[in-house]
């Protein structure tokens, strides 16, 4: 019985959200508000019990989310022997962040924000350079003629196919970069290369849009499957 009630509720809420397709209406607003409220509450509780308590109160010696057996284990093994007071620094920074809610002392929230932005920027800078620039450049330096061997002998068809792939890839990168080079007027050969770059960009956006459509369809399929199979039992 409770299962049927929750299924029916979920079914009506799904239809309520879908009703926006027809036009904006009070039922949609109601369902949207429920969704936002429940999500916010759920995330708060989840983060409080799964993150804040084990990362703060447990580590400064207070009992939190860890079960008694887990606490006993860590105390026995000495992991909790020394109270990790430095975690309080993070707690204080977190509290300072909340000062944003008080307009008169809202400026205090800039300090933890500066800390977060600074540390993340430093951390990401290396990652971006290494992962998305150095490695990608290195792996994009490809031979324009790439002989392919099948069973020890040169395969002309495979070689031409791989070479064309490499040419398209290298050409796409170079012309794409040229398009974004604005220190020289896009005229003549340079302008032509920039126009080819636009075509590569358009194909990329098209592929990304196609995949986005597929992604959104997938969500809708799952909801329709829920309505027809789980709720209405119309599918076997």
């Amino acid at each position, binding site marked *: 019985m409770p299962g049927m009630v929750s299924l029916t509720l979920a079914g009506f809420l799904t239809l309520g959200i879908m009703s926006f*397709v027809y036009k904006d209406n009070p039922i949609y607003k109601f369902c949207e508000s429920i969704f936002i409220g429940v999500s916010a509450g759920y995330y708060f509780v989840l983060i409080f019990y799964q993150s804040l308590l084990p990362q703060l109160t447990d580590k400064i010696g207070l009992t939190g989310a860890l*079960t008694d057996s887990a606490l006993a284990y860590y105390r026995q093994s000495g992991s909790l022997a020394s109270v990790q007071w430095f975690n309080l620094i993070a707690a204080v920074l977190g509290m300072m962040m909340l000062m944003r809610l008080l307009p008169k002392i809202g400026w205090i929230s800039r300090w933890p924000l500066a800390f977060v932005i600074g540390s993340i920027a430093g951390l990401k800078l290396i990652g971006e350079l290494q992962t998305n620039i150095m490695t990608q450049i290195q792996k994009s330096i490809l031979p324009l003629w790439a002989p392919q061997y099948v069973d020890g002998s040169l395969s002309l068809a495979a070689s031409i196919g791989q070479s064309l792939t490499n040419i398209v890839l290298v050409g796409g990168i170079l012309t794409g970069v040229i398009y974004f080079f604005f220190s020289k007027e896009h005229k003549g050969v340079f302008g032509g290369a920039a126009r080819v770059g636009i075509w590569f960009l358009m194909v990329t956006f098209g592929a990304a849009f196609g995949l986005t459509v*597929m992604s959104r369809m997938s969500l809708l*399929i799952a909801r329709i499957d829920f309505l027809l199979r789980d709720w209405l039992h119309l599918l076997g």
Partner: protein
Amino acid sequence: MSQPNPSAPTLGPGFWEKFALLDRRIIFAFIFLGLALPLFYTIRQPIPVSPEGRAYYQSIENLPAGSKVLLSFDYDPPSSPELQPMAEATFKQLFTKNCKLVVIGLWPQGPQQAEQALATALRDPRFKDKKLEYGVNYANLGYMAGNEIVIQKMNADIISTFPSDYKGNATASLPIMRGVRNYKNFDFIINFSSGFVGTREWVQFCVDRSGAKMIAGNTAVQAPENYPYFRSGQLKGLLAGMKGAAEYETVAGQPGKGISFMGSQSVAHLVVILFVILGNIAYFVSRRKW
């Protein structure tokens, strides 16, 4: 001055002019039917497997039996139609290979998604005899806030990053975690992701810094930004959206929701393509007349 003839036919808007102004709700109705009707039928269609999908399967297949694998579930229910079929099929293949699985989540609802996928995989009759045991064969360490900082910290010490598991046990007390300190103690890493934090951050902070081998399952929206990582070898395999799930189910011989939903996906895409073509014809015909 001649009077207009009332009996002469008036020049009203033609079919294409009307079509160009078609109410979008009619298109929505067609899309809905295109998605819903195929669910009532079994549509068999060939599902060609991409090199990325095949590499994903082969990477797991090449793992030695009993390998220790870390899986990160970085998505929530809205993305489950695309990622859950991948996760379920992945668990099944890993259990077939007798791998030891450690699950974490960098999205709050990730570990819950993992629990559901694990439950589905464990119901498979093939694993009844294996007597798979929590803490020994698999474990769920739960969610940890901190995004990429968590990935970075795990490279130093996983136990202190996840002091307790999803069920509240001390992580260090789990038999599966014996001898595990950082990524070097895992043979393989698998990431299911639908955005930030996700595959991009795992490549940046785990793969490129620790040399770990990783494959990923992405939502279709996210996949284009991660294809370069596959080509560069930073990812060993990549599944993109429901199509990726269907590819993987095909190559692994485990038909699931990925394959069964592809019928709806294909018909709906045909409807979209049809409306794009008709819409363009209507646009050009109308423009010529105006």
